[in-house]
């Protein structure tokens, strides 16, 4: 799994790939962390659980990233080293994600605020041998 930060006039785009759906979700989340902070420390901070449910795969990705931004503000930590253990569901019912992140206290890093995840140009696609995603974040 990997991600790349892409040019956007005012905001920032994250393009990510992953072998499994779980991997591409975690890669976008790591892209969000990288867009927030140029030098993420290798250790420090406690790991916390992240759980999200939504009505579709795309909505689950949106809500997952929204939840990470929410947790950043209320826990005052930068979520890094994102792990997505499991994604289950179907579009007839509900999609669920279970994962975790390591939260580095914000006063220990030189980080800037990403305001929000957007649906603008969002793409989440099964490309046969893995998954690709593209997400624009509001800075």
């Amino acid at each position: 799994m990997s991600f790349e930060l892409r040019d956007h006039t005012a905001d920032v785009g994250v393009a990510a790939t992953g072998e499994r759906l779980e991997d591409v979700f975690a890669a976008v989340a790591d892209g969000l962390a990288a867009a927030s902070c140029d030098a993420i420390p290798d250790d420090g901070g406690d790991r916390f659980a992240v759980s999200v449910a939504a009505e579709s795969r795309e909505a689950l990705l949106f809500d997952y990233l929204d939840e990470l931004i929410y947790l950043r503000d209320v826990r005052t930590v930068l979520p890094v080293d994102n792990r997505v253990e499991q994604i289950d569901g179907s579009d007839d019912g509900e999609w669920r994600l279970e994962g975790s992140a390591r939260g580095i206290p914000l006063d220990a890093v030189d980080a800037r605020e990403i305001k929000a995840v957007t649906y603008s140009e969002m793409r989440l696609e099964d490309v046969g041998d893995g998954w690709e995603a593209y997400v624009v974040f509001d800075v």
Partner: protein
Amino acid sequence: MTTFDAGDVTLEKVREYVWEIPQEGEMRTPARVLASEALLEEISEDKTLQQLKNTTHLPGITKHAICMPDGHQGYGFPVGGVGALDAENGCISPGAVGYDINCGVRMMKTNLTYDELQGREEELVDSLFANVPSGLGGGGIVEAGVDTVDEILARGVDWALEHGHAVEDDLLHCEDEGTREGADPSKVSQKAKDRGKNQIGSLGSGNHFLEVQRVTDVFDDEVGEAFGLEEDQIVVLIHCGSRGLGHQTCNDYLRKIEQQHKGLLDRLPDKELAAAPAGSQLAEDYYAAMNAAINFAWVNRQLIMHRTRQVFERVFDRSWEAMEMDLLYDVAHNIAKKETHTVDGTERELYVHRKGATRAFPAGHPEVPKAYRDVGQPVIIPGSMGAGSYVLRGGENSMERTFGSTAHGAGRLMSRTQAKNEYWGGDVKQELEDQQQIYVKAQSGATVAEEAPGVYKDVDEVVRVSDELGIGDRVARTFPVCNIKG
């Protein structure tokens, strides 16, 4: 007919500085770009024009979707976009307001001159930086429980007045006197309130800042006098919004619209344009929540302004009243407001969405505060931290041409990633200090690089076009002295 070829889009020149994208396909109206050819060249380099065309797909769009001279690519709606959507048969779009509800600018005057400040810049910038929370996780001036957040959401600056963070005169110089009607805290989610309660009175990061400036030019003596501006005077400009509370509110309603009005959403070319049909429960709920977030942002800027008064008191050893640190005006540039406009001779109620655009009502308009009704409302246009900012007044053509709107800033030209490759924060800071005597202090060096003067359009040209079009007339220009940011 003169045309401008922007690749996939061809624009037709209507008159000087007015370009039209003709209606085609699913577009409900034409779209217009207000720009000189030089600005249009820049505007056409990213996806601004496509995003502008997309906004004309929104139900109830009236006359045309309009891009201001500082327009650039955003998400869904372009930044610098104005869209007036019918309040009875149209819709309201959280994405077209933006995440940072009531992101805006206020300017506070002083009676200090630049001479009196020179030599104290470092002391002032250090003291402002130490006392005005900025950056990520920097807390707020007020630490509050949810009850307090609810009061702020309901009452706006009136809450600040009661708690000693404002004076009566501040309310009289703010749009809607600092309290938005129809705000309902119960329509703002608990998550949004949880994010907001630690951020009341904080700048945040990105392009938000507090800047001490000097007035370099007054172009219109009569209006300058009405605004209380004169050359060499020190003023303070504050740019920030509704922080996490506003961002969360936007996302909460985008998701609700996706779940409840999927039919409408599926007909729109960009999911970020998600809109609630006028008259639906969700449209009413979003409008009430957005109004509450507007109040939150006003209180945010008010607390920062009042704290700035206290910092000046300590640095200059005088009371803020003696330094006449009075609010000139506060303008929002991410907002939707139900307004009455005359369209083809008929009065209509419209949700006027201004995303990266500023209301610019002219002289005589009943919604301009009494203090400025004879000359038109002040419009504050911040430039980059190495260039001038401007004070305009609402122009007499604004109601007819732009639903009473003009630009909101210089407008970005270069992406943040490219900016970081081209500039290093430390160099930018040193150059500003050595060459232009501008003192910058930021939480993050990367922010300084991303906000380097070279990443923005030419604010002088943006303002010139606004002035020529008569939508916002130049009154005064200011130039940075000290700048703090996240």
